[in-house]
């Protein structure tokens, strides 16, 4: 089973001497679903940023879909990002574009032909159950709906891996649960998912692998405790 993401003794220090990650080593397999947990400031976001190359490791190696942080050139970064989808707590939608336009934007940026854009946008809107609100601007949508648009945008390029940074952080419990259900559905279709969250109730309610960070160190990995649980089949028991 090829690893989709591999961190090898990764350390990340920020300019003012803050150590966000301290020799973190782990792998994430194709099609896997894993949670990144830990208190805020533990380094969850840093891990996600290193994966989509928003940041570069201070030491160690980050390997994502065959690209190593050691040899990655700036030119290759956009190409890599197109194989990843990212969603954030604050959705990061463009406020003056409709839901459909926000999603289409992600395709246009990659130079996709116009003829392919509309059908794909409709398809992902349907997938997140928002086809009826395709023309709504973000401010006309609820938080949960905005996050669905953001997920649809992340999915439209058919990513191999979806990164989610506290995607339910701004949502009420019901919306949060439905977002998680959506992510599970997406995972069942084959997309690997790495989701950072500090909502432990949410984590406990699912059978997925959990990576726990504390002060930049990986203190718990249910995956390594139960070898084989990291295989492609979601639902590999963490216990």
């Amino acid at each position, binding site marked *: 089973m090829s690893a989709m993401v591999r961190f090898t003794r990764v350390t990340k220090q920020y300019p003012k001497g803050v150590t966000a990650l301290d020799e973190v080593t782990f792998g994430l397999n194709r099609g896997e679903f894993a949670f990144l947990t830990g208190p805020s400031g533990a380094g969850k976001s840093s891990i996600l940023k290193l994966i*989509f190359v928003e940041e570069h490791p201070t030491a160690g190696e980050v390997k994502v879909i065959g690209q190593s942080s050691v040899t990655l050139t*700036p*030119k290759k*970064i*956009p*190409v*890599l*990002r*197109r194989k*990843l989808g*990212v969603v954030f707590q604050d959705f*990061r*939608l*463009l406020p*003056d574009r409709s839901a459909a336009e926000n999603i289409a*934007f*992600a395709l*246009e*940026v*990659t*130079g996709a032909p116009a003829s392919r854009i509309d059908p794909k946008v409709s398809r992902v809107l349907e997938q997140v159950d928002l086809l009826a609100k395709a023309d709504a601007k973000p401010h006309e949508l609820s938080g949960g709906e905005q996050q669905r648009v953001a997920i649809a*945008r992340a999915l439209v*390029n058919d990513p191999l891996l979806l990164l989610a940074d506290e995607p339910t952080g701004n949502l009420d419990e019901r919306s949060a649960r439905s977002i998680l259900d959506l992510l599970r559905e997406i995972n069942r279709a084959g997309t690997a998912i790495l989701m950072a969250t500090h909502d432990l109730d949410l984590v406990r309610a699912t059978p997925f692998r959990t990576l726990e960070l504390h002060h930049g160190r990986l203190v718990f990995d249910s995956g390594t405790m139960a070898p084989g649980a990291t295989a492609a089949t979601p639902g590999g028991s963490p216990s």
Partner: protein
Amino acid sequence: MRLAWREALLAFRRAPMLSALSITTIAFSLFAFDLFGLVALNLRSALQQVESRVEIRAFVAEGTRADAASAAVGDVQSFPEVERVTLVSEAEALERARRELGEFEDVFDAGILPASIEVRLREGYRNPEQVREVAERLAKYDFIDDIRYGEEWVEKLYRLRTIATFVGLALGLTFALVSIIIIGSTIRMAVLARAREIQVMRLVGATRGFIRAPFLIEGLLKGLLGGIIALGLSFLTYATLGRLVIQAEFFGIGHSVLGLFAGALIGFLGSAYSVDRHLRRVA
């Protein structure tokens, strides 16, 4: 490319106030530069006009044979510095004096005024050294009595010209620099206003070139529009001044096009710089 144009035009539509503000800022800073250019242009052409009057007059001794003088005229005409040589005979000198100084018409008698050779120098040869040198060469003809060329006057004029050139250059550079800084910060504002959009573009895997393109087009258009407005304002100023105060000269087609081109270029480079700086900071 079509997408880049769409995004650039959308930027105008989405933030009309900010766009208008930056175009206005660009227009006014280019307008200031244009005004300076107009002053410089007119000053230069005024100086040139005065300069074109620089003339050497060599007075021919009485009793010189006409063919000797004409032969000299032929010689002088072949000097590389010389634009035009005219032989003014005694009769013509008298006639001219009578015409120019009408009230003394009766004073002038035939034979009072000597004949002269008048030499006008080509542009670029009208500086004090050249003028003196040509005058000295003329003095070698033994039938030349006296030579006048307003030595002091030529020197003063030349000094004035040098000062004007330097002051003009310094002021021009300052104005250009100030325009560039103002325009640059205006464009930076536009880039910062769209930081979120840039972030999303990067997130979904847009290449650097793709992110830059709409901004470059936007900057180019803003610079061009600003330049057009500035040129319009300058023309208005020029026309108003022309009617009320003084008939001046306006930029020719070449200068105007150059000005618009400079506006567009400043907009383009300012955007390139701002976007790159922003991308370097966030990437």
